[in-house]
């Protein structure tokens, strides 16, 4: 299998603040690759570096064997599509117009948009089961619906490589499963997906490969069955999870979940005097982190 994406020794910093230090990884053709890491580890920044939105300090990114810094923006948009986290545009475009925007890199004409492209856009909506939203203004949809629309736009863009930035973050359970199923389907058709996610279970269940990014760079890279274990999770989430097997499926759970509900969660309360008022202070002791309320 050929390499779809190869990132080598990537360095990036926002001003003087270094964000990515020497990241290297690759994604093979036809893989659904999960990018997994805690908040602030630079997953979105890594995406933006790969997509040439941000200028690299050092390192190279190759897609389909071509150096992205040498590709034109239009050529790039035929190779890779990007699903951003959901957002609101300033104008109330209709859903079908938003999805049709995905066809832009394939459009040649000046005014008219070919019938075929419009049909592809509607089909993409239909794939996600949201064709009934086609004539609704995008800005009036819920966050989850908007995320589905952006996903549809990406499908309509019809590229061999897809970057998805937390594609299921605003979705309900049913739609999360639907999106992952669709991503599996897309991958089976020979396309390649790299998706970042905050849910270790999703990554473990649905991805072919997972790349774990921590604050110090790539922590682990490989089969989710091997990579998503208590040791790796402990490293990035500071021992707040356990991994258990239920009916042959591995599930990541919060550590000590049973004891939380039984009220045995090392709850310390004390009364604190602030001026004339007495404030009840509660310390929750979860793992080694302390939350104060």
């Amino acid at each position, binding site marked *: 299998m050929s390499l*779809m994406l190869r990132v080598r020794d990537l360095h990036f910093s926002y001003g003087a603040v270094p964000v990515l230090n020497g990241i290297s990884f690759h994604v093979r053709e036809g893989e659904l690759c999960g990018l997994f890491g805690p908040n602030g580890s630079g997953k979105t920044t890594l995406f933006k570096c790969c997509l040439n939105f941000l200028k690299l300090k050092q390192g190279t990114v190759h897609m389909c064997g071509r150096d992205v810094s040498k590709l*034109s923006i239009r050529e790039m*948009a035929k190779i890779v599509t*990007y699903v951003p986290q959901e957002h609101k545009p300033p104008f109330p*475009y209709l859903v079908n117009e938003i999805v049709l925007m995905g066809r832009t*890199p394939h459009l040649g004409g000046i005014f008219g948009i070919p019938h075929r492209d419009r049909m592809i856009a509607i089909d*993409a*909506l239909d794939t996600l089961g949201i064709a009934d939203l086609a004539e609704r203004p995008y800005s009036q949809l819920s966050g989850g619906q908007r995320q589905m629309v952006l996903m549809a736009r990406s499908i309509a863009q*019809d590229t061999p490589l897809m970057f998805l930035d937390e594609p299921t973050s605003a979705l309900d359970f049913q739609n999360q499963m639907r999106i992952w199923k669709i991503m599996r389907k897309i991958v089976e058709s020979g396309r390649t997906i790299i998706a970042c996610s905050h849910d270790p279970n999703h990554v473990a269940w649905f991805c072919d490969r997972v790349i774990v990014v921590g604050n110090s760079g790539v922590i682990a890279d490989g089969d989710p069955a091997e990579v998503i274990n208590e040791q790796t999770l402990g490293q990035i989430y500071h021992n707040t999870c356990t991994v258990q097997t239920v009916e042959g499926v591995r599930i990541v759970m919060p550590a000590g979940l049973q004891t939380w509900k039984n009220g045995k969660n090392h709850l310390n309360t004390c009364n604190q005097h602030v001026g004339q008022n007495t404030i009840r202070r509660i310390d929750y002791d979860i793992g080694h982190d302390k939350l104060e309320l």
Partner: protein
Amino acid sequence: MTASTSIKDFLPTLDYKRIYNFSELRKIGILVMLGIVLIAMVSIAVMMGNYYISITDSIYTIITHLTFGDISTIPSLHNIVIWDLRIPRIILSFLIGGSLAIAGTVYQSVFRNPLVEPYILGASSGAAFGAALSIVYPIIGVSIQLSAFCFGALAVTFAYLLARVQGETPIFTLILAGVIIGSIFTAFVSLLKYLSDDSALREIVFWLMGGFYYATWDDIILLAPVSIAGFLILLAMGWKLNILSMGDEEARSLGVNPERYKFIAIAVATALTAFSVSLVGIIAWVGLMMPHASRILLGPDNRYVIPASFMMGGMYVIVSDTLARILTSSEIPVGIITSVLGAPYLCYLLRSKGRGMFG
């Protein structure tokens, strides 16, 4: 490229397609209707005025000119009033209104803000300074219009250069730079007003309010090519403007170079604005309001909003200027009419459609 199977292979087909085609047809229908209303308005405007000329005489005069007929068959008074006074004035109003309205549409899309107007980058303040300079110091020997155009274009160029950092022009800095440059030129205009004598002061104030009193065929020969070329370029860019209004990163991921197309769009819109302002002074509200009115009729797709706002901007200024001509025996500056008509309209928009339009 590795994706051998088409994305269509695993997609089912559906019947939502018919609805889609219908909505496109509907929009084209609305554009045609606007064209018809525009022609009707022009015809009415030709007849309106302090000197009454019947509809048959008006049509006869126009047709004789258009078909290169024998002009000596027209009464010379009709010929002067219709062909030398009213027609140039109506065409000029239309071109100015249309140009300002599409410039506003473009600025709003590129700046991703529906409350932006064509003067936001300082074109009007620059032009006002240029005009005032040439009024107060006629010794320089440059016409008011040329001076206004040069300084209008100069102000926007300054704002653009000021905002450009490391090959990129972020929207936020661009608008801020426009405000800075605009306020500097406004201050200079105040200074010139302070230095000028009474008659020059009066002329500056008149210029600032805008008007079509001196419209001639020469103005149209100057403006029409710019206006029509600008319109065609922006019309061709309609879809790209939609993409630009989604933001720089998204434009990139959709294959549209944001820096290149932002530059082209801003340059064309600025040329239209600077030309308009330098010819007739500052006409308020058209560039802010007509894009909104077009979006309410047709939705936000710029492929339709641009032709619609060109026609609606033109109509709005024709109506305003006709009112300016006929309301009183002496003329009212058209800038006053556009504001008086425009402000309540925008209030109405804000109250009735505000949430849908702006949120």
